[in-house]
């Protein structure tokens, strides 16, 4: 069975790379990038099944990234990584087509369930 490809997008490098390592241990093909521009470029060249996207990053914010990605590849399932008090942004993200959101710091077991559900949704859509 093919590994689920997960892309973590967060400007907090240590957080993103450690989370990627934890997902790799759990059998996911997880990578991390630290800016919006790299997330968009990688999503075009090597699209992940599931993207974990921080909503608040310097420069282009997560909502903008989500909109851009949904335009060129709506099949990528996006789970928004939200901080405190980001309910408005989360709601906006859900309207744009995010799969779900999870608050940082994340509970890894909840996150894994969410990633699997997101992957299943992608598979059900047959893309």
């Amino acid at each position, binding site marked *: 069975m093919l590994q689920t490809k997960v892309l973590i997008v967060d400007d907090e490098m240590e*957080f993103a790379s*450690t989370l990627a390592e*934890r997902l790799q241990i759990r059998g996911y093909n997880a990578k991390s990038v630290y800016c919006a521009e790299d997330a968009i470029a990688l999503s075009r060249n090597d699209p992940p099944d599931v993207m974990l996207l921080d909503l608040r990053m*310097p420069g282009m914010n997560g909502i903008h990234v989500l909109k851009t990605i949904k335009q060129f590849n709506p099949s990528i399932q996006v789970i928004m990584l939200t901080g405190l*008090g980001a309910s408005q942004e989360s709601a906006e993200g859900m309207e744009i087509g995010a799969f779900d959101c999870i608050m940082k*710091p*994340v509970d890894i077991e909840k996150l894994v369930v969410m990633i699997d559900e997101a992957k299943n949704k992608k598979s059900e859509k047959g893309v």
Partner: protein
Amino acid sequence: MGDSGPADMMELRFRFIGRIIAGFTHELKNHLAIIKESGGLQQDLLSMSKKVDSAELHKFLRSVDSQIERGLQLIAFLNRFAHRMDCECSSFSVNEAAEELVALMARHAYQKRIEFTKDFGPGIPPIHNNPSMLQLLIFFIIEEMMDCFEKGGTITVRTSSEKDTIRIAIVPNGNMKELTGKEDYNRVEAVNKICRELLGTVEQKGANGEAVIILTRSAAT
């Protein structure tokens, strides 16, 4: 917006405090998230191999130590910031007040790809004034500047003193644009109002809009 009355000032102060707390909690949450993931990774590795890799463990402990150190420093800044409101006027170090504000605004600036640099003059004598109001004034000037940057840059906060006068220069460096007047309150008016309360002045210089706050050492009593 007309002349800022007490109610407007209260609103501005709430907004200021809200911004500072939002930046602080965001930053602290990030440090805790890193500690949580690093600790989780150690648990994962332990449960897989059942033995401790000492190099990995050292890396983890260094990371935790550094995150805690940064978190504690932020907490110290926020605590000092909060206590500045204990009384209206006190003798305080302008350098310390500016340093604390800049540290607490760093997350907000980072989101806009702006970095702060500090150029604090040595031996600046304490000033007797309202420290919280001075921080509010610096905050509004910096916030105005941050909105003018096209694609990030730096803001230098420079302090100096001469005889009975203390100067705080806030110097932007980067491509700047004109504001379109979209801001929902009048910062210039707020700055002038705060200046009057501090019995000081603000001068604007240069093409990039460098701002210089000038205060006398014992303006307020």
